[in-house]
């Protein structure tokens, strides 16, 4: 299938055939056409008269709309509208309009223009769409419908235009008629008034006889003639009016004649005859008739006008109706056409979408099919490759040989290996060159079978390999026809290994078979797969019975879970070794076995089952159990020492106890063995614990429950015994307590240990609290007071007092004491009053301990003194320093108290700590005092140093300025003398002057060096990391001049970065290197070595030269200011350079030293101290 056709896009045909709106030239055409029409209309203005004739302007609009569509159509309409309004419609040269007629006509024109534009555009659009869609025949019908709609609408518009032109013409005619009527009426009225004028003149003349009245009369006669002629002309188309005129004319003539006659008579006969004639009334009668006639004519004319106006009105209504109806119909047709178009478009869009979808589906299917084909091809290719590869790489030897001449047609790599030659050598050669058969008879038999049957399969034989070894091979051959020739396909597999494995397996099988242990194979579903004779003997099943059955048959019901565990371990790759368990024989009897299970894996290493070796260990197991029993008995016998048992028959209140119990409760053992009432035992329980014991027993009996309680029992001698008693009540069926079995255990040791721990905890807590309370205290008295209070509280003592002993060792003062419900002992005492024992003990620095004053002290031995201040028991710790008793801490009790060793230790410990704290505080106070003094001294010294520094600075500033000025004068004027008077001086004098100058210059150098040296001690050290190597390079480059013209070899080793003031360190390097260069000056070849090494974790830098060196016995003078080891005339210098070096190094916290031999070179070493943290 060619998919290209489907993908070809539809060409936009419409664009080339129908003009699109919006192109510039169509707009230009629109304006040009409109302007040309206007120009033509103006050029031929006389032809058109005063009528605008707007209808001709529809032409350019139609043209523009047809060519360009909506845009140009509207442009043409606008141009025409503006042009006509300005140039044609009165008032001219203005956009205003005078007459409503013109306005109407103009509006119609504009409306028609707009409509034409819209219609034409729709028409174009319809055509474009029709052309664009060539597939649907229906669209042609639709186009015809749309065109018909638009055609009808156009027709209506043309009709409306025509009607409007006609109606305008009518309107114009009606207007003309109105004017005509007005003219006629005006003429009639003028006629009447003129006649009246004639009569007035006639009467005036008759009365006055003055000619002046006759002037207007003559003019009136001429006017009347003119008016009459005009009237005749105006009413020429009206027979009735003509007839009236015919009657009017004689009357007017008669009236004028009468007037003539009266005037003549007055002129000739005088006033009276004329007056008579006038009064005869003939004149009046004529005048009345004329007036009536004229009125009739005016009425006729008015009637005519009304008729015409009515007709025009009627026409107007018709026109308007036609225009409205026509316009509406045109709109309806356009709307219908547009609706149809819209319908068509919607339908078409739907069709197009459906088409597109179908196309996409088709494409997707094509893609799928293509992909499928590709996959198939690939699979085919892969399979071919696989096949070829399989053939080529098969471990079996595969060869195809033409039967006729035994030529090898095809062979794989295995064949080549078997024959020991390459593929190229093998193909096309006869096979006999490569025979491997060892036994020729076998080969012949094989070939015979092949000839006879056409194939010979799985023939096992021995082949001799290329290297001479023998191997077992499985040979299969078959005849087949390839391209019309009979061929033989042979496959030879090396089965040597397999054979060997088979033999090994057979041997293993024999071992398994004859083993006494049960060796069982099973798969992962626990089905038995193999079963040896040992298994048969051990479990009683024969192989046929059990193979294929589940091995769980051998496992007792309560141990069924073991199998799942074994399997899961095997699956994890672990093996189960010597699991001792119980299995069931066929006859149902149990036997103890030791089971070892390991995984059976297939050739790929997957676990497919498990092998299980089970050994009958029933006998061994029995022996083990006997041993365990005897051990348990032994243990219980041993435990009898601290555990006793008892049984209480509650009903008969007979409690039988063993020996331990009877001993613990101080009951006769024999009686106890026979049974005693419970109370006989319980009386030994100490009073405090009796209630608890009774309650515990009662509750256990009431609930038939358990009993567990700890209590103390009195002993005949020695301290109480702590017992833990546990028991259980046995009830009868009714729930009544019957027997009470129990045991008691001696837990005294545990209790004692617990108490000790508790005491020690309390003690440490107390010490901690004490330390916290006294830490912030500095005043020894306060420390003693707090300690006394806390110690007293801790021991629950009546009083705790601290006393300071006077230098005589006898008098002492209690400054402060803690009391609890007894009087304070603050005051002065004499130690001697407390008896010889107190004096002796405390004097030796030992603790005085009295538990009961009355019992321990004789009346003369201080007892009364103790009693006097209410002391029955006391612990007093002394502080002996330098052999003298200094202070004491005493704990008093108003009652005798058996001080426990722990309590005594507490007092001793606390007092010791207290002394230590006071010592420390005192020392601290002293140090603080010293520190304060020291700080003050430091401040003072700093100020002194600053002042000295300032002085020094001022001094060196002054030296810098003033010391050099006279030197300059010495030098300068010496030079001046040499320059100005040198020629007149003797040579000796010149030399003196030069010496003066040299000395002055040397002095200047000394000053400079000294200033530098003194500045070094003032200048602040700016420490920062420094790249030593870079520093050395820079120093060497500054010393370039000193090396010029000499053979100097400078070797620089690795120089670690250091920390120091870069400017000062550079000075160090400059000085050391400058010295090295200076003192090697006399060597034909100077060697200077710069390097660094580590010693004691610090970097040591050195500069070594092969120069003059020096005698080490003067080494101590080397770094002193102005110290020189060489004569000035040998080596110049100020003797300050090394002093500067030393000062800089010392300021860095480092060390500088030198090693040298006289005339054997010198090495200067230096280190830099660590930067301050």
């Amino acid at each position, binding site marked *: 299938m060619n998919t290209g056709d489907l993908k070809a896009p539809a060409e936009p045909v419409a664009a080339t055939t129908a003009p699109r709106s919006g192109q510039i030239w169509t707009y230009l055409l629109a304006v040009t056409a409109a302007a040309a029409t206007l120009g033509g209309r103006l050029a031929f203005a006389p032809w058109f008269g005063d009528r605008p004739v707007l209808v001709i302007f529809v032409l350019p609009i139609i043209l523009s709309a047809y060519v360009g569509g909506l845009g140009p159509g509207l442009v043409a309409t606008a141009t025409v509208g503006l042009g006509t309004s300005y140039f044609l419609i009165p008032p001219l040269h203005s956009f205003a309009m005078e007459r409503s007629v013109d306005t109407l006509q103009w509006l119609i024109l504009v409306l028609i223009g707009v409509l034409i534009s819209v219609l034409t555009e729709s028409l174009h659009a319809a055509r474009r769409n029709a052309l664009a869609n060539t597939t649907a025949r229906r669209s042609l019908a639709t186009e015809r419908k749309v065109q018909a709609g638009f055609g009808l609408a156009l027709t209506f518009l043309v009709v409306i235009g025509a009607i409007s032109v006609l109606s305008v013409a009518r309107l114009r005619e009606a207007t003309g008629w109105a004017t005509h009527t007005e003219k006629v009426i005006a003429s009639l009225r003028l006629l009447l008034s003129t006649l009246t004028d004639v009569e007035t003149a006639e009467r005036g003349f008759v009365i006055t006889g003055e000619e002046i009245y006759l002037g207007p009369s003559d003019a009136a006669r001429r006017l009347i003639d003119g008016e009459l002629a005009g009237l005749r002309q105006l009413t020429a188309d009206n027979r009735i009016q003509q007839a009236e005129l015919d009657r009017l004319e004689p009357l007017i003539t008669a009236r004028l004649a009468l007037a003539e006659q009266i005037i003549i008579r007055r002129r000739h006969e005088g006033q009276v005859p004329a007056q008579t004639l006038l009064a005869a009334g003939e004149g009046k009668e004529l005048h009345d008739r004329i007036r009536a006639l004229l009125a009739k004519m005016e009425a006729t004319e008015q009637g005519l006008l009304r008729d015409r106006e009515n007709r025009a009105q009627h026409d107007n209504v018709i026109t308007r109706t036609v225009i409205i109806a026509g316009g509406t119909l045109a709109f309806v047709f356009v709307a219908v056409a547009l609706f149809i178009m819209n319908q068509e478009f919607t339908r078409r869009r739907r069709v197009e979408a459906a088409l597109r979808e179908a196309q996409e589906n088709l494409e997707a299917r094509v893609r799928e099919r293509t992909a499928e084909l590709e996959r198939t091809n690939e699979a085919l290719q892969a399979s071919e490759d696989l096949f070829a590869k399989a053939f080529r790489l098969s471990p079996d030897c595969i060869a195809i040989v033409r039967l006729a001449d035994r030529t090898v047609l095809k062979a794989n790599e295995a064949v080549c290996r078997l024959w020991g030659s390459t593929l190229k050598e093998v193909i096309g050669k006869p096979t006999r060159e490569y025979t491997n058969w060892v036994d020729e008879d076998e080969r012949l038999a094989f070939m015979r079978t092949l000839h006879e049957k056409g194939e010979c399969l799985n023939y096992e034989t021995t082949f001799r390999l290329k290297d001479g070894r023998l191997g077992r091979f499985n040979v299969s051959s078959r005849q087949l026809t390839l391209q019309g020739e009979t061929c033989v396909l042979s496959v030879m597999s090396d089965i040597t290994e397999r054979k060997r494995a088979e033999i090994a397996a057979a041997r293993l099988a024999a071992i398994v078979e004859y083993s006494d242990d049960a060796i069982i194979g099973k798969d992962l579903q626990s089905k038995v797969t193999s079963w040896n004779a040992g298994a048969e003997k051990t479990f009683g099943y024969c192989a046929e019975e059990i193979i294929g059955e589940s091995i769980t048959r051998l496992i007792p019901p309560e141990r069924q879970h073991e199998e799942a565990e074994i399997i899961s371990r095997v699956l994890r790759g672990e093996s189960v070794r010597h699991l001792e368990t119980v299995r069931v024989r066929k006859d149902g009897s149990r036997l103890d076995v030791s089971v070892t299970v390991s995984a059976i894996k297939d050739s790929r290493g997957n676990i497919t089952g498990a092998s299980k070796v089970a050994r009958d260990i029933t006998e061994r197991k029995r022996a083990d159990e006997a041993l365990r029993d005897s051990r348990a008995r032994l243990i219980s016998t041993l435990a009898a020492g601290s555990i006793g048992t008892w049984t209480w028959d509650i009903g008969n209140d007979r409690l039988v106890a063993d020996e331990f119990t009877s001993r613990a409760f101080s009951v006769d053992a024999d009686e106890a063995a026979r049974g005693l009432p419970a109370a006989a035992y319980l009386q030994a329980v100490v009073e405090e614990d009796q209630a608890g014991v009774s309650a515990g027993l009662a509750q256990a009996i009431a609930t038939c429950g358990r009993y567990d309680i700890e209590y103390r029992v009195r002993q005949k001698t020695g301290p109480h015994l702590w017992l833990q008693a546990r028991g259980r009540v046995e009830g009868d069926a009714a729930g009544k307590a019957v027997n009470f079995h129990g045991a008691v255990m001696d837990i005294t040791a545990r209790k004692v240990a617990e108490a000790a721990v508790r005491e020690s905890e309390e003690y440490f807590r107390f010490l901690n609290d004490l330390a916290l309370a006294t830490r912030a205290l500095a005043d020894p008295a306060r420390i003693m007071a707090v300690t006394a209070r806390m110690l007293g509280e801790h021991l629950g003592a009546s009083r705790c007092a601290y006393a300071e002993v006077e230098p005589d060792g006898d008098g002492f003062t209690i400054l402060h004491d803690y009391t609890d419900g007894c009087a304070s002992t603050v005051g002065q005492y004499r130690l001697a009053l407390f008896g010889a024992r107190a004096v002796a003990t405390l004097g030796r620095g030992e603790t005085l301990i009295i538990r009961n004053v009355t019992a321990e002290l004789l009346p003369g031995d201080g007892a009364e003194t103790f009693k006097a201040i209410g002391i029955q028991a006391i612990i007093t710790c002394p502080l002996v320093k330098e052999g003298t008793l200094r202070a004491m801490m005493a704990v008093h009790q108003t009652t005798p108290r058996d001080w426990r060793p722990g309590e005594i230790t507490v007092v001793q410990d606390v007092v010791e700590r207290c002394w230590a704290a006071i010592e420390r505080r005192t020392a601290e106070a002293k140090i603080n005092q010293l520190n304060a003094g020291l700080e003050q001294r430091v401040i003072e010294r700093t100020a002194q140093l600053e002042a000295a520094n300032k002085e020094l600075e001022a001094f*060196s500033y002054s030296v810098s300025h003033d010391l050099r*000025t006279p030197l300059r004068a010495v030098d*300068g004027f010496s*030079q001046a003398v040499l320059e100005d008077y040198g020629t007149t001086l003797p040579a000796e004098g010149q030399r003196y002057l030069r010496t003066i100058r040299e000395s002055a210059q040397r002095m200047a150098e000394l000053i400079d060096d000294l200033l530098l040296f003194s500045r070094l001690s003032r200048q602040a050290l700016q420490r920062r990391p420094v790249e030593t190597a870079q520093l050395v390079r820079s120093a060497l480059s500054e010393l370039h001049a000193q090396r010029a013209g000499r053979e100097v070899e400078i070797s620089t080793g690795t120089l670690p970065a250091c920390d120091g003031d870069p400017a000062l360190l550079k000075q160090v390097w400059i000085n050391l290197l400058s010295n090295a260069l200076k003192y090697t000056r006399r060597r034909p070849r100077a060697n200077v070595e710069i390097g660094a090494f580590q010693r004691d974790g610090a970097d040591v830098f050195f500069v070594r030269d092969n120069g003059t060196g020096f005698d080490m016995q003067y080494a101590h003078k080397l770094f002193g200011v102005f110290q020189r080891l060489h004569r000035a005339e040998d080596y110049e210098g100020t003797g300050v350079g090394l002093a500067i070096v030393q000062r800089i190094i010392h300021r860095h916290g480092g060390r500088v030293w030198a090693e040298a031999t006289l005339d054997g070179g010198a090495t200067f070493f230096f280190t830099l101290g660590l930067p301050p943290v």
Partner: protein
Amino acid sequence: MNKTDPVKILLVEDNPQDLELALRALQKAKVSNHIEVVRDGAEALEFIFGEGAYAGRKISDGPKVILLDLKLPKVDGLEVLKRIKSDPRTKMIPVVVLTSSKEQRDVVESYQLGVNSYIVKPVNFERFAEAVRDLGFYWLLLNQPPKVVD
């Protein structure tokens, strides 16, 4: 010398020996024309600003270069430098400090005040003469100062 004659070099030096040596060095360098010598800081200021004994001197005739010692009686050299460099009429005049002091603080302060050159008078007369010659050559011949506007 007429007071309104343009002065090329103003030498401010109090030490008579140094003065003589400096003049000798300038003569040797052949830049000794129109040298005015003042002996202390106050006089130097009067000369430069046309005040006191030098009233009527125009600043525009001022020296083309001032050689200034730092250690001067009455008004200190640094003060003179400060006055010259803080007055817009005189700050364009190149000032060369010629002093015995190698003290770093003098050098730093001089440069902070806008000195154009700082020369330490060497004790060795040849080097002194060389320095004077170099600076005279430089400031009088090579370095054309902008015209000073009153």
